[in-house]
């Protein structure tokens, strides 16, 4: 059980790192902000870490950026990460980068494009890759597959694992009216490599992923349900803002530990 390391909260986090088993490092923080690099690497030397990315845009229907992948590969080596995760999404097209995770139309052809891109990524980075389910707020009329079906197809075609974000699953299931537990039931045994949890807000009747609130009870319940079926390597609590309420974060870590302990074999 660990949390996502955020360089801006390093001062507050460092004295409490001993309360965690692991930290998740966002490789883009190290790539785009060399000034924070030494601090993040110092944390990696103190404890096991996993690596996560936000800038790959694996779903863009263009070849992955080789220069960026070189930077990712170097960073993964420095961190000593056992695997690397990214989002099943796109954030950019040539000439524009919105920095927002956007969904793909759920079609077999789109799955094939992502799998082709992932093949290039895997050749580059040298460690296993996991893909994370994102939160999405609209549907494409072109979509022919359900969410679980599309994710399963991409993972099968690419040979990647799943980083299951339970907060995203919870709010997608609520916003798009499906049963989150059915989604979990549909996952092949051993598929879930890692788990993310976080807290969001409700806006105009829609749940929005904001990573600035405590983890809601339904997400803890989904974790309990998941751990009876899958054995992820890590469970990471993500918090991107409101670091002054760090006790909230560590209260949630304690709760995560209790759930893990209650599902121990």
């Amino acid at each position, binding site marked *: 059980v660990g949390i996502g390391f955020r360089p801006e909260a390093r001062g507050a986090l460092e004295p409490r790192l001993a309360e965690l088993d692991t930290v998740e490092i966002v490789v883009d923080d190290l790539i785009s902000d*060399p000034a924070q690099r030494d601090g993040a690497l110092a944390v990696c030397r103190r404890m096991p870490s996993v690596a996560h990315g936000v800038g790959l845009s694996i779903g863009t*229907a263009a070849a992955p950026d080789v220069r960026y992948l070189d930077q990712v590969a170097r960073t993964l080596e420095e961190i000593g990460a056992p695997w690397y995760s990214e989002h099943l999404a796109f954030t950019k097209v040539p*000439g*524009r980068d919105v920095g927002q995770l956007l969904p793909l139309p759920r079609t077999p052809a789109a799955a094939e494009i992502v799998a082709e891109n992932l093949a290039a990524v895997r050749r580059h980075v040298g460690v296993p890759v996991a893909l994370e389910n994102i939160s999405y*707020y609209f549907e494409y009329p*072109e979509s022919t597959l359900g969410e679980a079906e599309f994710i399963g197809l991409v993972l099968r075609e690419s040979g990647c694992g799943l980083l299951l974000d339970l907060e995203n699953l919870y709010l997608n299931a609520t916003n798009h009216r499906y049963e989150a537990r059915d989604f979990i039931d549909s996952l092949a045994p051993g598929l879930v490599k890692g788990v993310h949890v976080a807290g969001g807000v409700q806006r105009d009747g829609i749940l929005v992923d904001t990573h600035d609130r405590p983890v809601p009870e339904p997400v803890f319940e989904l974790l309990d349900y998941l751990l009876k079926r899958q054995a992820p390597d890590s469970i990471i609590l993500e918090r991107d803002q409101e670091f002054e309420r760090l006790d909230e974060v560590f209260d949630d870590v304690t709760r995560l530990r209790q759930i893990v302990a209650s599902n121990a074999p």
Partner: protein
Amino acid sequence: MRREELLRLQAALVERLCRAAGGGEALRGIDAGRLDLVAALTHAKRVDKIRSQLPATFAALGERAGELALRFAARHPPLDAHSVANALQFFRFLARERDCPPFLPDVCYCEVAMACLGARAAADARTVSTPVRGAVEIRRRPGARLRRCEYDIRPLLAAQRLEIEKRTVFLVVCRPPGSPFGKVFEIGEGMFEVLSELGRWHVLEPDDEWLADESTLASLRRFCELGILEMREAATRCASA
């Protein structure tokens, strides 16, 4: 759906989110209200990134920040996801805006300079040892920026306090070695002029008055420690910064 077809759809969606309009035929069938929500989330995220780099600028803008940020987004779509790149775009936008406080361009300039320095890879700042035995080369450290301001904006930069005094100040923005952040210092007009001339390596011979005078040499060393200057021995051309 082939790659070209998917890329066209993705480009239309990105355009719609950047401009809160457009997208045309490619986005037919997608709930417009939900696209507005995603556009709002995207915009808020971008503004948060810019604000994180330009807190004093946003403090000075006060209630106008929201309206300006909307106009900025409509004219300047995001070319890069990084916060410094977006802050730089916002600085260029503000430079052309009228009706902003007269000190705002200086505030924004210094904040962007600090952000750019923070984003640079850390580097050693080697200086020549004492005593200086031969000719040395000296220059302003790459990334260190000079700004003559008609207002003393330092309280705003340091603590977002709107206590702006109208007086000319000469500022240098630099990043002390080992510090993850850029910093702003006030210097005298004479030193400002000297630093302005040191954009390139400048050779100081052993008998140069700067090297002969211990107090001047100590000042130069102090400037090296602050990341404003760098010095190297001319003969060995040792690497620095």
